């Protein structure tokens, strides 16, 4: 298979006209991340060098590999750590899950973040995102006004440039319209909800020293309490153990793959309608997803019950959203 000439934008977003040099800028950014020999700042294992017998993580832009399989690596959007730390008190887990602000460390660590729009104590809308800061930083570097336009479209038409930048005019991802008053993209800081972290996780999962003795997944026992890290780590290590070359499939990104509203009922007890709206991305690969009951229905999200339980937190929905990255495995020609 010929080398990939250019990395695609997440979900093939077209935030600029076709042919815009922006797409080259984004591709360069992904290439920078995919082509790293190691993940800077990580105390974790290095990826296997290209060509090692235990497999490798490769950049399809730099190395020619014949793909033989693609595999969607899916995980639960709600933070697993909150559920296992509050095993006997799910209410507390969901209360903790809605924390997201510039000053407090977000608890939303599964590459899915959300914001609940309330009127009083009633939930009107829940907005979910998987877009990474890198995409918005590259956009801002290329055309700050386009970023401002998108903020105005997605959050509030009255937003000014000064409100999303710092005193030096640089993009401030922790601006209030991406934290306390709105949501545009991921901000997770520890652990990082960034594309660099996701790619670094994938690179670090492959055949690092000390992992080559592993014969099956029962022998891999040490992982963080998230769903995402062990999911990606175990699966990619497993593919690499088979001697395969692995990478992130195009378009490289983090997506909401599915959302399941089985057993969600209207106030009259009947099944809810389709109140999901993919705002950025597309079904199966959503980047921004909103859940809001149409005005004609005359009730709110708070009036919906999931399995007989009223929705009180955004996390009640996040538990039923599946996040994914798509891995690709192949062999050297």
């Amino acid at each position, binding site marked *: 298979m010929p080398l990939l000439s250019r990395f695609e934008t997440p979900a093939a977003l077209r935030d600029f006209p076709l042919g815009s040099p922006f797409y080259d800028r984004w591709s360069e950014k992904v290439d920078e991340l995919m082509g790293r020999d190691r993940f800077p700042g*990580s105390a*974790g*294992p290095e990826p296997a060098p290209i060509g090692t017998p235990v497999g490798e993580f490769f950049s399809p832009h730099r190395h020619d590999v014949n793909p033989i*399989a693609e*595999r969607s690596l*899916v*995980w*639960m959007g709600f933070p*697993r750590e909150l559920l*296992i730390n509050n*095993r*006997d*008190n799910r209410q507390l887990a969901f209360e903790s899950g809605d924390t997201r602000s510039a000053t407090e460390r977000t608890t939303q*660590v599964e590459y899915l973040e959300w914001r609940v729009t309330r009127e009083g104590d009633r939930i009107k809308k829940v907005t979910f995102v998987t877009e990474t800061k890198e995409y918005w930083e590259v956009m801002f570097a290329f055309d700050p006004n386009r970023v401002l336009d998108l903020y105005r479209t997605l959050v509030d038409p009255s937003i000014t440039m000064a409100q999303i930048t710092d005193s030096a005019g640089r993009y401030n991802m922790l601006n209030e319209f991406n934290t306390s008053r709105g949501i545009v993209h991921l901000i997770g*800081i*520890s*652990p*990082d909800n960034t594309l660099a972290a996701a790619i670094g996780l994938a690179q*670090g*999962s492959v055949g*690092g020293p000390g992992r080559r*003795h592993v*014969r*099956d*997944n*029962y*022998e*891999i*026992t*040490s*992982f*963080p*309490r*998230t*769903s*995402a*890290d*062990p*999911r990606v*780590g*175990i*699966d990619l*290590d*497993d*593919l690499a*153990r*088979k001697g395969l070359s692995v990478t992130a499939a195009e378009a490289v990104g983090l997506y909401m*793959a*599915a959302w399941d*509203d*089985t*057993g969600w*009922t209207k106030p009259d007890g*009947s*099944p809810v*309608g389709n109140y999901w709206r993919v705002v950025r991305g597309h079904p199966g690969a959503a980047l921004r997803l909103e859940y809001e009951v149409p005005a004609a229905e005359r009730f709110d999200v708070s009036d919906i019950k999931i*399995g*007989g339980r009223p929705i009180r937190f955004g996390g009640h929905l996040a538990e039923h959203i*599946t996040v*994914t990255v798509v891995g690709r495995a192949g062999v050297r020609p």
Partner: protein
Amino acid sequence: MAKENLDKIIAELSKAEGEIKPQERGAVNATFGERAKQAKKQRSKVAPHVGRPGAEPKKDQRAAAKKLEKVATPFALSLEFEPVFAENERKNIQGNIIPGFNKDYQYFLFYRIKTVKKAKVWLRWIAPLISSMEDVLAFNRLYRILRYRLGSKDVPIKATWVNIAFSNAAVAKLVSKEAALSFGDQSYRQGLAARSEYLGDPTNPRSSGNKNKWVVGGPDNEADILVIVAGDAEKAMLDMVDQIKTEADRGGLTLLFEQAGETLPGRLRGHEHFGFKDGISQPGVRGRASDAADDFITPRYIDPTDPRSDLFAKPGQLLVWPGQFIVGMQRQSPEDLFTAAPEATNFPNWARLGSYLVCRRLRQDVKAFWEFAIDTAASIGLPARKFASMLVGRWPSGAPISRTPGADIPDLGADDLANNHFLFDDATRPSNLIPVPGYPGDTYPQAAADLLGAVCPHFAHVRKVNPRDSATDLGKIADSLTRMIMRRGIPFGPPLLGVGLLRPPLWKKERGLMFLCYQGSIEDQFEFLTRRWSNSTVQPNVGGHDPVIGQEGSQGNRDRFIVVPTSPKPTTVKIKDEWVIPTGGGYFFAPPIESIAEVLGA
């Protein structure tokens, strides 16, 4: 391939099953302790952390891993860390939870409390009849000794067991509303009918599976009490049932529904109505019944020199901490395969040593299942029996398709030390077993690595509800251990298979599975397995619905699909019909035996 004929398939299935061979393995534990003492421990190393900066494993996880690395004596994990069930615990835990009745004849009585005062008298009457873990373990011990001595499975001792469980509404009636509210499992407090839609059951009131049409457990006919009677001999069991019913009539109870269950006859013993051997894969319970080094609750068959002896009771049977099934005991850590997590705290004191019981009466439409299998197999060029086995993940004999992709091996299906020994993601290595009298060893082909689901598809029932060594949407393998349930189901209704010529009246008779399972949390175990894995097209791994028990219920839609690993491209197959239809049940709690008379009956 020409389309196969339904009658022919059914007839073939009826004839072609391997003999269910008696398992002459009863006394193996006699030598186990000695071997355990002599053998050397070979623990696998713990792989280094992989994950994002800031998401390192917690200190306690690292400590647990290090602790295990230091363990030097054989079965140290079992002998040093696993609990010894005290006499009080063995006498209070109901026997169907652990080790399980596993009788050929069972009977289920669903009662509504009419008069609380009289019901309490009845409870005090029935309490001494309730069979404990101690009772069942003692019987099983004696049975194994006799079977070994006689060299035959036909052992001249019989037992009839009784167990009981209560809905949350019953606790409110018999104890107090506060007591009912103090059960932390919210699903139990709500009841099965309130959770029906969440489980994917049909929401259309005209559908036969809609909860309003259930024979028991619907919004208007929820049972307060479930009595389970089980026996080796049908007559003795029915005598006990009659006695209980007579007393219940006097005891202020209304019988809402009764159901007999019976193991399928002859060669189909242990199979469910579609024709597949059922109940093969059960979790093993960590712990011992006494201080004796070899008196394990779940017998151990893996040689202590094999590092997997601390993970598995027998090949493929993962060991799980008992709190996953008994509230108030140490639970399974979702972080580490070996370590325990603290016991649950969200239940009233008197409920300690009890267990949540889910009962689902599932009607099986055998004709619809096999017609789908035959039609679809013909359309994608596979033999019907092979395709049907891909839906299940096992051949009708119980042989895993992972171990024998091409054809059934009935002897493998009947081999308890081999039929559950397979991984999905990596090639399965043989286990070293302790000597088992008369057992020649597992000589069948081992399963090859099947990470991508080319042999056992990701939708296959056994892969959906037990992902084994696969990562899931919840990440690590240890988390999957916290989802396991203790299944105690039995078929009901007349069999279709094995009866010769099929006539329409027989097709029309109702048949199915009385599905029962015990767990420490209905929401985190039974409901999770059902809603999050069986019913999902993407969880635990992408590939479609579980075509056997999975249901689709999003926005009232019922259509399911599976992605069949055909060559050169996978084929997406839509499923319109349903062949497992819920027709009743309930969420119950099986309390410790002393609380039946002293709390609920007081």
